[in-house]
């Protein structure tokens, strides 16, 4: 039986410390996050439309970077998100969301937090130094870092069922989730452009690894919840997206597919003959016409296989409804957009500029190729590929396109700003975020499934939060208004 698709993303950002001779990415990431935390504590104000201006509040002595205790850089924010250093990257994990649109909002708020962190970091760094982050997945030199998705799934569903349907799903959804990439990696001969930043880095179908021999379906089993009821499906194969429509579809469609798998609704086996090569084949064809081979010997294009999933999803919506996939309203929006996008990919992918990252990016790259007569190996094209993902608003090519009216937005910017500090209301993220906002000093530790509070006397109190759908505003909102102290909160929770 399909469980509500509580979901979240974890994004590792590319990071560069500019203006430093020996640039240590762990240090750069630490400065970034510590600067944001300090900024939030002190409440520095930013007159932020002059980012080139040196916003120093004080003079630093000497030329050494600040001593950062890197092992401490792991913070939880008042919006319920986790912001930390992981594998030499700043990583942002959104709070738990109940539907795809809420997750688009939470993910975009994360970008704003990274942008604000960069500005705050200018105060901590020496003149001429700057931390810059990129929301992408590849450095063009064989290294990759991920944007992972997480979905709440019924533990009773055999993992083999998930694998069987998710392999063709992840291979084919690249046609709208891909963020686009110039060239290839890991020996893949790509003359030109491919759909996904991640495809070339995947070597296995199923497995536990995340940093090498990456598997299309990851088997990490860390539910952060009741392991009898729930599985947290940890998806590592996706691209980081900037286009809100792309993120919306990536999450919304995957949630529906998972619900169908849970309910045993997928009546056909679309297993591919070889999923790892197919992942690359689909990615390496921006015309979206390449066919992949199924185990039954048949061949289909990725878009054709996507139409099969959509056909089934429409039937599922009719027969079961989409309550468990974020609600019927959001579900309908997902289905409608999915259909429009597949039709666009078949007719002429360029018509989807502003909705899909790979198409939007390719449009700019093709325009430059034509105007400046550039060959695919020209570094300018690799630069365009990279700078599309620059998270500084004044440097981001994506932001330039948004300002030029070339990108379709689903979000209201005021809502994004609020989501930087306010948690979603319908998951346990609400409880976590409100505790941090109300009684930050009393929060000794905050995890996904528990919070430890110092109530002013021994012992410390551990509040379990095993159920992702409890601790919502509806459940606990009043407690935050009515309780004057954490001790009172804990007492009320216990009763």
């Amino acid at each position, binding site marked *: 039986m399909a469980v509500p698709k509580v979901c979240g993303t974890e994004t590792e950002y590319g990071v560069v410390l500019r203006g430093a001779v020996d640039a240590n990415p762990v240090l750069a990431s630490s400065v970034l996050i510590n600067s944001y935390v300090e900024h939030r504590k002190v409440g520095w104000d930013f007159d932020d439309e002059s980012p080139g201006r040196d916003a120093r509040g004080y003079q630093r002595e000497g030329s050494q970077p600040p001593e950062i205790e890197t092992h401490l850089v792991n913070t939880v924010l008042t919006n319920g998100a986790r912001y930390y250093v992981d594998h030499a*990257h700043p990583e942002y994990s959104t709070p738990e969301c109940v539907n795809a649109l809420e997750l688009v909002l939470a993910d975009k708020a994360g970008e704003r937090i990274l942008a604000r962190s960069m500005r705050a970091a200018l105060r901590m760094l020496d003149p001429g130094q700057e931390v810059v982050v990129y929301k992408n997945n590849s450095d063009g030199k064989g*290294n990759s870092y991920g944007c992972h998705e997480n979905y709440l799934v019924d533990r009773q569903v055999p993992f083999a069922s998930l694998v069987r349907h998710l392999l063709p799903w992840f291979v084919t959804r690249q046609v709208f989730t891909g963020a686009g990439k110039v060239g290839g990696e890991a020996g893949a001969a790509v003359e030109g452009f491919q759909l996904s930043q991640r495809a070339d880095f995947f070597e296995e179908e199923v497995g536990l690894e995340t940093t090498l021999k990456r598997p299309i379906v990851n088997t990490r089993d860390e539910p952060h919840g009741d392991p009898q009821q729930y599985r947290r499906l940890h998806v*590592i194969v996706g691209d980081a997206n900037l286009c809100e429509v792309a993120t919306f579809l990536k999450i919304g469609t995957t949630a529906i597919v998972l619900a169908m798998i849970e309910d045993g609704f997928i009546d056909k086996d679309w297993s591919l003959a070889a999923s790892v090569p197919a992942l690359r084949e689909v990615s390496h064809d921006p015309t979206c016409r390449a066919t992949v081979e199924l185990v039954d010997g048949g061949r289909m294009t990725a878009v054709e296989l996507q139409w099969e999933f959509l056909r089934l999803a429409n039937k599922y919506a009719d027969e079961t409804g989409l309550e468990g996939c974020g609600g019927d309203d959001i579900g309908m929006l997902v289905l409608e957009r999915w259909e429009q996008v597949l039709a666009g990919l078949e007719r002429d992918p360029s018509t989807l500029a502003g909705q899909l990252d790979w198409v939007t990016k390719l449009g*700019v790259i093709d325009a430059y190729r034509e105007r400046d007569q550039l060959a695919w190996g020209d570094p300018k094209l690799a630069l365009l590929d990279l700078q599309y993902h620059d998270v500084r608003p004044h440097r981001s090519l994506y932001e*330039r396109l948004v300002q030029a009216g070339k990108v379709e937005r689903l979000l209201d910017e005021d809502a994004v700003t609020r989501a930087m500090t306010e948690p979603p209301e319908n998951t346990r993220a609400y409880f976590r975020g409100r505790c941090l906002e109300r009684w930050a000093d009393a929060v000794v530790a905050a995890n996904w499934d528990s919070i430890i509070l110092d109530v002013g006397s021994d012992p410390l109190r551990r509040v379990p939060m095993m159920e992702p759908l409890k601790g919502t505003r509806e459940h606990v909102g009043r407690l935050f208004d009515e309780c004057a102290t954490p001790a009172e909160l804990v007492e009320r929770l216990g009763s």
Partner: protein
Amino acid sequence: MPERERKQKPAPKERTQEEAVETAEATKQGEKIKEELDDLLDEIDSVLESNAEDFVRSYVQKGGQ
């Protein structure tokens, strides 16, 4: 269950006439897009990192997850 309207495909004759109109409009639209594109590239030029080769070469990341 919510009702959904399925868009009907128009009959073949209607589609030819529609296509002719669409092609003319598409050409005009295409020229407009090209002009806007040139302006857009100028804007992007102004924010692009100055030395593409150096910048791209120096962008190296540690592998993540």
